């Protein structure tokens, strides 16, 4: 004799197994991801703002942080803005060099002059990044920015930065929905979609966007 709870749990199991295979084998995650992602709009602006993505414990940039930095430097070199704003706190909020400092060193190595680089080293969340960046840029009378982050994070980032009164032009560091095609990658993409959708809902509920 099975109880209603046992039937619910088995039904949930069936649903999860089917969802797992659909997410891994079919392009559903890619299609949903493309709907959530924001496309790039590039025009000359006042500054290029490169959002933080994290350091490894050794103090080196993680993969996503490196991709965003490279994209920021590339846009600077194309002459789209005269200032490069690099963000990122230290690893685990400790006293080690900040992500912004490591990125600034990399940007200088790539030929960006020191006077063109601004570091923001104390922002822990996307919302804090928007507040700290906007308060700094307001003093410089900046209104239009090129925002660099990955395509899934861009929707939330763009909305929270626009909330501060800035005009935001999105520049994509990585377009995951169109670049991931293997089953394991698709599962990771499905997880990122859940994560980013939850974060978007949280930002809306909290009134940040």
């Amino acid at each position: 004799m099975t109880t209603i709870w046992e039937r619910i749990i088995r039904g949930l199991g069936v649903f999860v197994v089917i969802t797992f295979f659909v997410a891994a084998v079919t392009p559903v995650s890619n299609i949903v991801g493309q709907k959530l992602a924001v496309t790039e709009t590039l025009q000359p602006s006042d500054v290029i703002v490169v959002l933080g993505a994290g350091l490894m414990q050794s103090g080196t940039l993680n993969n996503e942080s490196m991709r965003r930095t490279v994209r920021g430097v590339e846009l600077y070199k194309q002459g789209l803005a005269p200032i490069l704003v690099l963000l990122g706190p230290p690893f685990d909020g400790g006293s080690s060099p900040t992500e912004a400092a490591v990125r600034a060193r990399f940007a200088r190595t790539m030929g960006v002059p020191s006077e063109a680089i601004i570091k923001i080293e104390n922002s822990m969340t996307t919302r804090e990044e928007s507040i700290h960046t906007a308060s700094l840029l307001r003093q410089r009378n900046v209104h239009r920015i090129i925002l660099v982050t990955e395509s899934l994070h861009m929707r939330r980032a763009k909305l929270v930065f626009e909330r501060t009164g800035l005009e935001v032009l999105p520049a994509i560091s990585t377009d995951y929905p169109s670049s991931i095609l293997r089953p394991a990658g698709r599962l990771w993409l499905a997880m990122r979609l859940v994560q980013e959708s939850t974060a978007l809902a949280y930002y809306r509920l909290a009134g940040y966007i």
Partner: protein
Amino acid sequence: MELIFVIILVAITSVFGFAIARRTRPVTAAVLIKAIGRLLDWAGLFTLFMAANLGLGFLFVVVFRELTLHFVSLYQLESILLLILSAAQAFVFCQWHNRA
């Protein structure tokens, strides 16, 4: 290609496992169907435990942020350890429930 390769590997080891198991115990189709049912029960329980752990973790982080000046990232919940421990929780709960 990756998917076909993985499915071939799993199919080969399943057939070997099945053949070895048959030598020690009689394995019928009914027992196999029951085992698949248990796998689905485990998957359902795993989802419940994972959701509960994530929900509780989210609550802890938000309350901690509000009550103290320390920042704790929600990305702490993006942990492979949480995934494995949730799976273990579901497995033990399943075994306990089936034998109770």
